[in-house]
């Protein structure tokens, strides 16, 4: 058995154990999947509190649906789909309300400058729309294929490709300048 196959089986076992009420199994699932989920949410909404809320809500949704979850399906894409869609909704809602939290970066504005290329990617992402950030995060952080992104966001494949292309066109110069 390959390492990936073993990992899949291990995850299925954890889900089964969690479905049977094992808090230990749930914690292992949580520790495995929280960091990328929380990171994805933050990179889309650029708001610390909102990212935490979104990741929590996604896990709560997962718990509520745990009994009905098909163990043959991978857990991470399902969770990430919830996270990213909620993050898009949050970002859109904020744009509509035109609220700017005191410590949050303005929508489409430049967040406080910090040193280093990793900070620069956050600043560069802030220049993109929430929808563009979402496809970048799904593709390059969470390793979705364009087809999987289209499915997750309920978009045509061509729209995903064009959003990715425009996002990379926008990110490229900004990140090159920061080198």
């Amino acid at each position, binding site marked *: 058995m390959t390492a990936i196959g073993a990992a899949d089986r291990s995850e299925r076992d954890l889900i089964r154990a*969690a479905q049977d009420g094992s808090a230990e199994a749930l914690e292992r699932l949580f520790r495995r999947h929280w960091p990328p989920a*929380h*990171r994805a949410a933050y990179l889309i909404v650029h708001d610390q509190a909102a990212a935490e809320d979104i990741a929590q809500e996604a896990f709560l949704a997962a718990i*509520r649906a*745990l009994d009905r979850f098909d163990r043959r399906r991978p857990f991470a894409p399902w969770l990430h789909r919830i996270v990213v869609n909620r993050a898009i909704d949050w970002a859109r809602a904020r744009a509509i309300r035109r609220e700017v939290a005191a410590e949050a970066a303005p929508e489409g504005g430049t967040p406080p400058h910090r040193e280093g290329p990793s900070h620069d*990617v956050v600043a560069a992402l802030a220049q993109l729309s929430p929808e563009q950030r979402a496809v970048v995060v799904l593709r390059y952080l969470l390793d979705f294929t364009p087809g999987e992104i289209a499915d997750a966001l309920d978009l045509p494949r061509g729209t995903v490709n064009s959003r990715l292309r425009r996002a990379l066109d926008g990110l490229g110069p900004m990140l090159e300048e920061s080198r």
Partner: protein
Amino acid sequence: MSGPDLRDRLRDAPVPDERGAEERGWRVVSAAFGEAPARHRRPARLRVAVAVALLAAAVLAIPATGAGAWLRDLVHPGRHHAKPALLSLPGGGRLLVGSREGAWVVKPDGSKRLLGAYHEAAWSPRGLFVIAARGRQLVAVEPGGRVRWTVTRPDPVRHPQWSPSGYRIAYLAGRVPELRVVVGDGTGDRRLDPRAADVPPAWKPGAAHVLAYAREDGSVWLAATDRHRTLWRSAPGEVPRQLAWSADGRRLLAVGGKSTRVFDDRGRLLSTLPSTGGPGPVSALAFARRGHRFALVQSGAGGQSEVVLLAAERRPPPPRRVFVGAGALGGLAWSPDGRWLLIGWPSADQWLFVRSSDARRIVAVSNIARAFSPGASGPGQAPRIAGWCCVSK
């Protein structure tokens, strides 16, 4: 910049208080898991469900009139054991919901998508599009959020309604509302009546483009929009808040604050229901998917509201009470298969899905306002149920 480079940067990007967020997240999630009924705890869940069902049966066994004051003791501010979030739509289909942020589409799995800052949105007949108002614009948008076309008017537009054929849209525009009709692709916008009342028009079911609307004197008009011809008009009366057709197009209700007028399709007034026999005004009404039954929400004594099933007939059968709740009840919508009735309950921040064949079967979902106000600092406003559309996409 290469993909691997971007990948590395995204994975290394600093997330504020990442570790603290994880610990707080785990505390919330583990607490919820402790409360959640896992498989080995199911018998307890079953006992709770039975208790809830018995309570519901007790409430529903009360006749629609003459309910005693003891009823208040049975009615709670929100259903116990309501689901904390919407994880599926009983009956399938897709919901259209309006909140302060705009129009949302809720899918069968409970996931939702904010279409944008649209208001007074309505489904197209097969759910392929949503028609909505945005300031001075009439906007046709796909359920995924893509705008198909817009019509811009000099004054704000409101109450757009898509015809059952899919080829016409009626809407109101202007301070003194004029009724206008536009072709389903956004062309051919023209005025139908310069003095309509500020009431959503209602297309008669069927392929012909026949529209009911109201005027300021409370008269109800029926017009063949393509021919620009009035088919009938009623006597003046109370200005209705809502017009609604039965699914077969043979009954038209004009719902006012004091009374509901029941017309047949020839404009004959069959009956007038004074506040539908209830103690308070009607706030929402929805015809069933078949026949002449309709559900309505009316406020009652003691700060309660109720949902009652009636029939739009000359001599209707006695009303049947479906639900009684403390505080205000909101919108109503029937599922596409007609088996479930969705009741908004703003006072309890819940939605109730009631099985039409067995009103004791109630699925309650809580935290509705917050679900449609993501990121709001307060509890959020109760969303408006704008429609429950067809299963096909």
